[in-house]
């Protein structure tokens, strides 16, 4: 049974009238790669800031690695790393000097610090740039330095807030690969916040959807997809050689078929129960040939929008 590492209970943050985070109940387990997905302004950053003790919740509680986010926030920052949204570095210092400062602040003794810096710069592919000033770095390189800085404390959990924002596709892939590798090979628990559905789907197994500060659903992408499909019933898409109004009317009359839509030579048949056999028999009986028959696929966007529309 995996142990919870982040647990929030009715966690709430108001900025005046704005409910940035609204009674959030969330559990993240040790070793998982959890996606925190929501559109801009949905409260992801606010949640992460509260979890790291950088902003105080209006109400509710949460623990990270067993520590209370209000009373023991410094302990949390010892065992949890955050790569903040829009993280920055000391431009006139080198990558190594930047990391050394962060290492010192984490109380890592010098020999150990030097060893970790070397290892981590290698792990994020910056070993050649270790002694280059950060001002010369591309965005992608800076972001990789940020990941290395998060890891220098050997965290139990790493929070990444929109880590690929503003990067080119190559940079996005590099960041994603690093994060996936950390999770798989080092067993690092990752809390990955993003507004990009595709990216979360590529990276994370379990996802929490947040909108307007409220958690709408938490599950794996497949299960969420099934749930949407289930709620919708089953839909079949046909492509036929010929469609007559009589055929449409007859399909509609089949018990269990909710509705039929025609689009040129395509038919979309919505069923409450599985009636694929009856529907195809009816079509054949009418002398039309089925060129294509498939269950309607829900794209990720459909799922995403579905969840956002519902609440």
């Amino acid at each position, binding site marked *: 049974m995996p142990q919870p590492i982040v647990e929030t209970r009715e966690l709430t943050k108001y900025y005046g009238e704005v409910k940035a985070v609204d009674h959030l109940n969330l559990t993240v387990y040790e070793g998982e790669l959890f996606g925190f997905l929501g559109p801009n302004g949905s409260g992801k*950053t606010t949640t992460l*800031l509260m979890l*790291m003790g*950088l*902003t105080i919740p209006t109400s509710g509680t949460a623990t990270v690695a067993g520590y209370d986010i209000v009373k023991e926030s*410094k*302990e949390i*920052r*010892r065992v949890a*790393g*955050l*790569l*903040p*949204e*829009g*993280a*920055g*570095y*000391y*431009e*006139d210092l080198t990558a190594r000097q930047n990391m050394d*400062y*962060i290492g*010192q*602040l*984490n*109380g890592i003794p010098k020999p150990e610090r030097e060893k970790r810096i070397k290892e981590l710069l290698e792990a994020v592919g910056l070993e050649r740039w270790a002694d280059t000033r950060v001002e010369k770095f591309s965005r992608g390189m800076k972001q990789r330095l*940020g990941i290395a*800085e998060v890891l220098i*404390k050997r965290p139990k959990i790493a929070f990444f807030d929109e880590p690929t924002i503003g990067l080119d596709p190559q940079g996005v892939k590099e960041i994603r690969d690093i994060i996936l590798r950390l999770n798989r090979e080092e067993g690092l628990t990752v809390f990955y916040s993003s507004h990009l559905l595709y990216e979360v789907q590529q990276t994370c197994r379990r996802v929490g959807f947040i909108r307007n500060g409220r958690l709408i659903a938490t599950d794996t992408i497949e299960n969420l997809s099934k749930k949407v499909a289930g709620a919708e019933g089953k839909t079949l898409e046909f492509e036929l050689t010929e469609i007559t109004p009589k055929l449409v009317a007859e399909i509609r009359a089949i018990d269990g078929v909710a509705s039929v839509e025609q689009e040129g030579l395509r038919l979309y048949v919505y069923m409450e129960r599985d009636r694929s056999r009856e529907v195809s028999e009816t079509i054949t009986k009418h002398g039309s040939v089925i060129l294509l028959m498939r269950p309607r696929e829900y794209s990720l966007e459909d799922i995403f929008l579905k969840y956002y529309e519902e609440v």
Partner: protein
Amino acid sequence: MRRFERMGVTIVFRKELADHLGSRRYLVLFALILLLSTMSAYQGVLYIRDRPQAGFMAIFWGAQFGFSFTYLMVFFGPIIGLALGFDAVNKERTSGSLSVLLSQPIYRDAVINGKFLAGVTALSILGVSTITIMSSLATTLLGFGPGAEDLLRITLIAALTILYLAFWLGLGLLFSTVTKKTSTSILMSIATWLLCSIMISIIAALVANMIAPIPMPSGPGANMTRLFESPEYRELIQRRFTIQSNIQRISPAYLYNEAVQAIMGRAGGFFFIGPGGGSPFRSLDISQALTMSWPQITAIAVGLVACFAASYILFLRLEIRPGG
């Protein structure tokens, strides 16, 4: 755990100090002050050679061309202090390094304390080494050094100079905490500097002229000399002076100047005209000097504490977000 808490401040302090000491901004100001103050010490030496009774302290005020040390500090002090503070917080906020820094296991006040202490240390290095270099140069050129009392006065001046520079640092730190952009805080700093070291004396003179105008004798029979020697005229000048200095006391630079003049043993210096209009160089012993300059010193110290406390409180409440 106490040890680790102190470590946070120490680490921030060390990094910030290294940043200052290696920064072009600091080195340029340091070089400028060093150059101008050795020049003023040299002029002070010439002054002392002409008037041996002036005493060793004259190296700080005896410059006849250009700036004396006090004048240098009145003029450049604000810019030195403000330059080390004006972007301490907002630069890190905009660059995003502050949120990375605060995600480390330290308390938030370690950051502001470390930054402030590093600034004070950099300023102390600047102030103390300038004064030391001036004194050693003068000692070499004159063939005699400061006496025990002079040494005490020099130490007091150094301490007061550090306090004064720290005040400007604190104000700069406050500007950098209340503003999000360094372009705003740099403008605030320049405006403050112009106001406190240049404009204030002009404003004070204008106000004094409005409240107590000097009557211009008119008519063919007017006797200028009679007017200038009359007790009413002298009283008027005294009143104008009082008005002017009270207005200028808004500026910490003026307070600093008054206090340093007193510590140097000069009751009537550049800004002082004795009530009797007598010798401007009535000399004060150290305890007299301290008593006399105590209100000024206190005012600067209170200003420093107020600026730092305000930045400290604001910083602890700062909402750390990307882009400010």
